[in-house]
């Protein structure tokens, strides 16, 4: 069933010529707002799902959903630098999946990890968002290796996504936190000094070597 959408920009509430990033952002906000779950026992539920469909339609028209759609936006907004990004990587990223991801996010937000896990299991496609959300769920369960693997996968599939990058970096923070904890108890060298220390030593060694006419690291 298709809903006739005359002006997709109007539906998404953005100016014509908006970038892919802006389109995606607007789309996400709207999906959250009109998600059927929010209106489950509400007389407005029909209205909300109709609206959601309209939004999905408009998003598709603007090429948010893959390779073949994006006529208008790619010509006017010049998304060349964004090549291969967004959701195009995985190919099949259906509207149903998109809605499920929003549902999973809200389940995680209210702390219903079992439900989020169950919903993730039912999704067949494997876009970056699936890996990201699986990672979040695994971390909540204390399954850090699995969480890390998923975070790495999501961040590799969509390197420009700030949310995935941030999730990946949060592991580094936790690592420093533990080392800081150990340091406070009188153990070890303190949080995160390892890498700096290593660089410093290398730099010193290189300088010393250069004094004697050699070169340890040609790039320094």
């Amino acid at each position: 069933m298709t809903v006739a959408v005359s002006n997709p920009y109007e539906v998404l509430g953005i100016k014509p010529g908006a970038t892919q990033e802006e389109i995606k952002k607007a789309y996400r906000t709207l999906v959250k707002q009109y998600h059927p779950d929010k209106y489950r026992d509400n007389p407005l539920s029909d209205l909300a799902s109709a609206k959601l469909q309209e939004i999905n339609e408009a998003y598709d028209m603007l090429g948010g959903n893959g390779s073949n759609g994006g006529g208008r936006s790619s010509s006017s907004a010049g998304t060349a630098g964004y090549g291969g990004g967004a959701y195009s990587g995985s190919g099949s990223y259906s509207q149903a999946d998109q809605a499920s991801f929003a549902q999973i996010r809200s389940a995680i937000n209210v702390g219903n990890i079992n439900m989020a896990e169950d919903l993730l299991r039912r999704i067949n496609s494997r876009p970056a968002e699936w890996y990201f959300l699986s990672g979040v769920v695994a971390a909540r369960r204390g399954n850090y290796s699995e969480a890390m693997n998923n975070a790495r996968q999501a961040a590799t599939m969509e390197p420009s996504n700030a949310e995935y990058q941030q999730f990946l970096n949060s592991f580094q923070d936790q690592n420093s936190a533990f080392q800081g904890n150990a340091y406070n108890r009188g153990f070890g060298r303190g949080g995160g000094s390892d890498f700096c220390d290593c660089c410093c030593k290398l730099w010193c060694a290189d300088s010393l070597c250069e004094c004697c006419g050699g070169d340890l690291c040609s790039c320094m």
Partner: protein
Amino acid sequence: MFGYVMPSKGELKIKNWNLYQAFYCGVCRSLGKKYGQEARLLLNYDTTFLAVLLAGIKGGYTLKPGRCLVKMKKQMFAYGEAIDLAADINVLLAYYKSMDDWKDDHSVKGFVGKTLYGRAAHRASEKHEVVARAIDEMVKGVDLIEFTNNQSPDTAAIPFREMLRAMAQYVMKGEVQSELVSEFCAILGKWIFIIDSLDDLEDDLKKKHYNPNTLQAQKFSVDQVLADAEQAMSMYMQDLANVFEKIVFKDEQLSDIIENVVFAGLMEKTERVLKKGRCDCGSK
């Protein structure tokens, strides 16, 4: 699976190191006395830690001077229920390990262990049926994981984790802190399994053996897996530290040793496993 849980010697007070030695030698002596001199070869650090943990929580150990036949010198030995229990569990785990070695690649070491210690293991399993059953369950679980080629390190660690939980529940039966200590051992078990899988990763890839990190290593690289693992490992350690803080210890000196293991010993091992072959500045 053995030799990952030990204190960081450099961070330990000398009096605590001596006490730890007394426990190590105590477990060794208990092994020799109950299972014959050849059983002393089975001694490992991990069960020594179990003895330290148990004695630290329950108290009730004594120190007596004696002469070690291996080191040919006089020193202290720890005696007590915790030490004997650790020795029994040591025999059972070591026997399982040689069975596993034998099954995996029919190594000589595996065969010798299997034949030499069969009787000792039988005696220990009659005494501690619960522990023997926990090991059996773990073996079954690991078989299933390997058969289905599971590629989540956390899922693959479940059988080993639950074995340690069951053992802790057994040795802490009726104690107030039973739940807490079981949780501590479970997290430790998960950590041991995963660090062991990372330690074996390169070897397993070469020999095409099962490893829960194979897929990730193929998608990215072994180096990437090891670098990522460093961060995940410290998060397990943080979980472990959180439980450690809740446990009340009767013996302060032993509690210091356990604190050392949780905050420094495991970290040192992690660094050694993950940075091997790339940079040797961390090894001592």
